[in-house]
């Protein structure tokens, strides 16, 4: 007998009080507050799930609360924004009274996908896209408020919405949340955003360069040729040299040379 897909992925309906939901959402913004090399996000997940655990029988300090909080503070690793999915799902699993061993297995299984999907979607996609979009606005002569509004507005519209979606879908689906990671935005979004960011990069570079240098097309043209050659070299080195360290070295040498000329 086939089971409708919605029934297969949705946990039975259960409301999370708005006050608790808001508290969890705000805490998600600080999920990395105690990030460290031992338990990584572990304590942060416990911190975010904690308001929901107060609803367990016995309330704060009760045996169920303490056992659940202890479970949720163990080692955890994920992208900080998509950790919202885990926080919602784990809160639901605890309140649904899932067996502890099952919750621990589920918790471990969430780490990998939530890390890799988030890294591709946000760090390698949305962040560079918004940054480059703002640089395009800068290159077109946009003033400071416009550039900042473009960058922070676009970035945080995605950022805050993703955290809210994650918490919501995690809570709704509980231990069956894995299917939510098949969402088209998470599966295909990185590629679309990546292409858009690549386009923005191409537009932004010459325009931003021209605005920073100031008037003078010949100089801008010369710099662009040098940039092209330098970028090809960096790409061929393929990660063996960190660009920012190279920039530090080159600029330090240039400052010493330019100041030294005075003497």
């Amino acid at each position: 007998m086939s089971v409708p897909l919605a029934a297969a992925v949705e946990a039975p309906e259960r409301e999370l009080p708005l006050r608790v939901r808001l508290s969890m959402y705000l805490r998600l913004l600080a999920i990395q507050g105690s990030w460290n090399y031992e338990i990584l996000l572990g304590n942060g997940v416990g911190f975010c799930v904690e308001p929901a655990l107060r609803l367990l029988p016995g309330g704060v300090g009760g045996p169920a609360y303490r056992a659940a909080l202890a479970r949720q503070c163990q080692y955890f690793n994920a992208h900080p924004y998509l950790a919202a999915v885990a926080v919602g799902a784990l809160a639901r699993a605890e309140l649904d009274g899932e067996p502890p061993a099952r919750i621990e297995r589920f918790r471990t299984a969430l780490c990998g996908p939530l890390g890799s999907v988030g890294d591709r979607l946000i760090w390698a996609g949305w962040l560079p896209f918004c940054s480059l979009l703002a640089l395009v606005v800068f290159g077109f002569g946009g003033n400071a408020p416009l550039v900042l509004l473009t960058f922070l507005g676009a970035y945080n519209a995605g950022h805050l919405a993703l955290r809210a979606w994650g918490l919501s879908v995690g809570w709704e689906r509980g231990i069956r949340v894995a299917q939510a990671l098949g969402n088209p935005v998470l599966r295909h979004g990185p590629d679309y955003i990546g292409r858009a960011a690549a386009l923005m990069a191409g537009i932004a570079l010459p325009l931003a360069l021209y605005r920073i240098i100031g008037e003078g097309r010949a100089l801008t043209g010369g710099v662009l040729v040098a940039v092209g050659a330098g970028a090809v070299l960096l790409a061929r080195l393929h990660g063996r040299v960190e660009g920012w360290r190279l920039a530090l070295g080159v600029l330090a040498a240039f400052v010493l040379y330019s100041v030294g000329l005075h003497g």
Partner: protein
Amino acid sequence: MSWLSLVGDLSDLFMLTLLGAVLGLDVVSFPQAQISRPLAAATIAGFLTGNVAGGLLVGAALELIALETLPFGASRYPEWGSAAVVGGALFAEQAEGAAGALTTAVLAALATAWVGGWSMVELRKLNARWARVRLDRLARGSQRTVIGLQVAGMTADLARGGALTLLALLVMRPVVRASVGLWAGDARLARAVVVGVAATVAAGAAWKIFHAIPGARWFFAGGIVAGLALLALR
């Protein structure tokens, strides 16, 4: 130096330190809204120093470099929040069009970002030490310990960003002033070198990030053509 200007200087220093602390916190701990990206951080620092356009300029140059260092997981990367405050403020303080101002401000920001990256690693080790000695209380499900660790980590990060910004401003300010005073070169050439280096890093970073995405290289090439055409039309 009059009392009034001394008070003004100290008040500027206090505001910039506070800004560096808050933006240092934004990098990882709270709320990761990317206010700490150089484009935003340096511009806000420029605003506080009375030269928002200067802050934006140095922010754009730093943002190009920062495109290469994205905060993947546990990787080690420069801390741009406090660093961009230092760069933005130092550039905004120089006379308009001063030769070498952009170069030295960007260099100061890069050096601060380097030290900032190291300080974040040390903070993570400190957080680990704090967590390790409280593992038994965490295993007992102590609400107080969970919240305490979180608050302690964020407070330490705030203090780290503030201390880094203050120290960098105190050390770099005289160095930048002296360097700009002694600069013996053309202002536009100096800016061209900075932005050339920054754009090289950005182009290399763009390739690194996007080359594996099907079709992205064509979008990049199309963007370059469009950007150059727009430049030619201006």
